[in-house]
């Protein structure tokens, strides 16, 4: 029977939320093929929350346990996942920092094709066919993976998590002997425990219109009021050193698909629009009524962001208080 391998992620021994998206995707492929889903997670020991894997479609949950696997270890993880993926019809990763590093390693080891940052997927004639944004989302490419095993990474926030209860039987995965040529020695938490723009359900982004780096405080307040929100930035302010590159949305930054994207003081250069146009709802706040951002925004307010944003924060807080 066809097996789809879902590659899960843990951080500090707890299952990461994006893994439920991977499971949902794997389940959908398995149902179309009439096959089963094996989930695999590399960890130092048991993973908190891995029982959720069964609820989201895993027939088996395989733990690849190794004393070094508390942190991501590229060579060891690649060895374990490639072993688990042998003979699978598809291997599904999340297109996260880990997935983007790991998926090509596994693909090279299995000698099978990889489609990365996939936003839509399905089966045609028994083969996996995917859609993936290219040119930073300015175009969509449809490709068919003709290998015996199709390897894909799913862009976060593009697969709505769905429950699909299965056995979720716990088992051990084989960890083949490996040489740890690359060693992750530490993960330093970001200064703020901020969400990543690529994974957040809500993104509040700022541009040159904020005038001073300190004024991003306004956006941080708004993000805090909205909850589950990350603060993004345009290329201009990242290049000016106001914000870290990790926050940049657009062609040389991140492509994001949140349910709500609030663009504040961002005119909307083509590279920026490419990075956020797949957001479900876009709000633009800008002084210039002719700014290109208003052409893609669902809702716009024209005017002074220094008046509008604090008011918006207050109104959201009021709503939340109800």
């Amino acid at each position, binding site marked *: 029977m066809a097996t789809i391998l879902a590659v899960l992620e843990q951080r500090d021994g707890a299952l990461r939320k994006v893994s439920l998206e991977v499971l949902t995707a794997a389940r959908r492929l398995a149902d179309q093929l009439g096959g089963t889903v094996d989930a695999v997670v590399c960890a130092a020991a048991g993973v908190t929350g891995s029982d959720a894997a069964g609820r989201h479609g895993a027939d088996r949950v395989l733990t690849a346990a190794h004393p070094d696997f508390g942190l991501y270890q590229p060579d060891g993880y690649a060895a374990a996942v490639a072993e688990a993926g042998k003979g699978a019809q598809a291997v599904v990763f999340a297109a996260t920092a880990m997935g983007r590093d790991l998926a090509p390693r596994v693909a090279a080891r299995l000698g099978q094709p990889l489609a990365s940052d996939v936003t839509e997927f399905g089966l045609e004639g028994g083969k996996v066919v995917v859609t993936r944004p290219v*040119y930073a989302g300015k175009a969509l490419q449809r490709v068919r993976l003709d290998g015996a095993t199709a390897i894909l990474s799913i862009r976060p926030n593009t697969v709505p998590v769905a429950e699909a209860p299965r056995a979720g039987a716990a088992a051990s995965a084989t960890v083949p002997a490996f040489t740890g*040529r690359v060693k992750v020695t530490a993960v330093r938490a970001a200064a703020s425990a901020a969400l990543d723009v690529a994974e957040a359900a809500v993104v509040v982004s700022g541009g040159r219109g904020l005038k001073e780096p300190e004024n991003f405080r306004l956006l941080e307040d708004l993000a805090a009021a909205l909850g589950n929100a990350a603060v993004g930035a345009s290329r201009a302010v990242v290049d000016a050193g106001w914000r870290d590159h990790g926050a940049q949305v657009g*062609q*040389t930054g991140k492509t994001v698909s949140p349910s709500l994207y609030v663009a504040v003081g961002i005119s909307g250069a083509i590279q920026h629009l490419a990075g956020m146009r797949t957001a479900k709802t876009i709000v633009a706040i800008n002084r210039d009524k002719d700014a290109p951002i208003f052409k893609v925004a669902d809702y716009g307010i024209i005017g002074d962001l220094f008046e509008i944003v604090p008011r918006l924060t207050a109104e959201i807080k009021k709503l939340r208080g109800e």
Partner: protein
Amino acid sequence: MRIAVCLKRVPDTTAKIVVAPDGKSIDEAGVKFVPNPYDEYALEEALKLREAAGGGETVVYSLGGDAAQETIRTALAMGIDRGVLLQATAGADGLEVARALARELKEGGFDLILFGKLAVDDYNHQVGVMVAELLGLPCVTAVAHLTLANGALEAEREVEGGVEVVGASLPAVLTCDKGLNTPRLPSLKGIMAAKKKPLEVKPAALGAGSVTILGLSLPPERKAGQIVGEGADAVPALVRLLRDEAKVI
């Protein structure tokens, strides 16, 4: 210190994308092509490391059509010592590109092989890592900070909510992210010198691969939205729309 940089010719990030009549590729008419922006960080890092080491050789490799010679010349103008064009028409299968590059790089005796973390055309995110796997070399991806000492490297890469600190020994493959450095612009002198630098052109054998492009399309246009109003007084109406119509808050 011997360093290889793999470079791709891509459409400028400001280019408007038009689908070609074949329905599978872009119409290149009027499109300006540039070195892949992430590869520029790799080029700059190679030059900095060679300068710090006080010697060595930097070589740029590009796999593509003859037009990539111009892209290679740009790298040579920045200061890279010599270039190699591997003539091929790359398909959509990154593994095939990686195999062709790995064959070429295998005997190069490089201490470091540098890539950009992704190419801004196909967003494949894979060729550099695959080359490392095929060559059996350690690889760190999306490097935003790098230090080298005593034949080993320490790199930092951004992960969700933090920074991963990664160690490896040389030789190694790295893919470079924004933040690693600020790429230099070619000087006039560099541009003149680049014309005389060696640029080897040879055909590359590229397998057909296992990825078939079925189509390329433009994303659906977003429906024109509405201006809710002007100034802070429009905020309550916006909040109502976000809650009741869009249902996102």
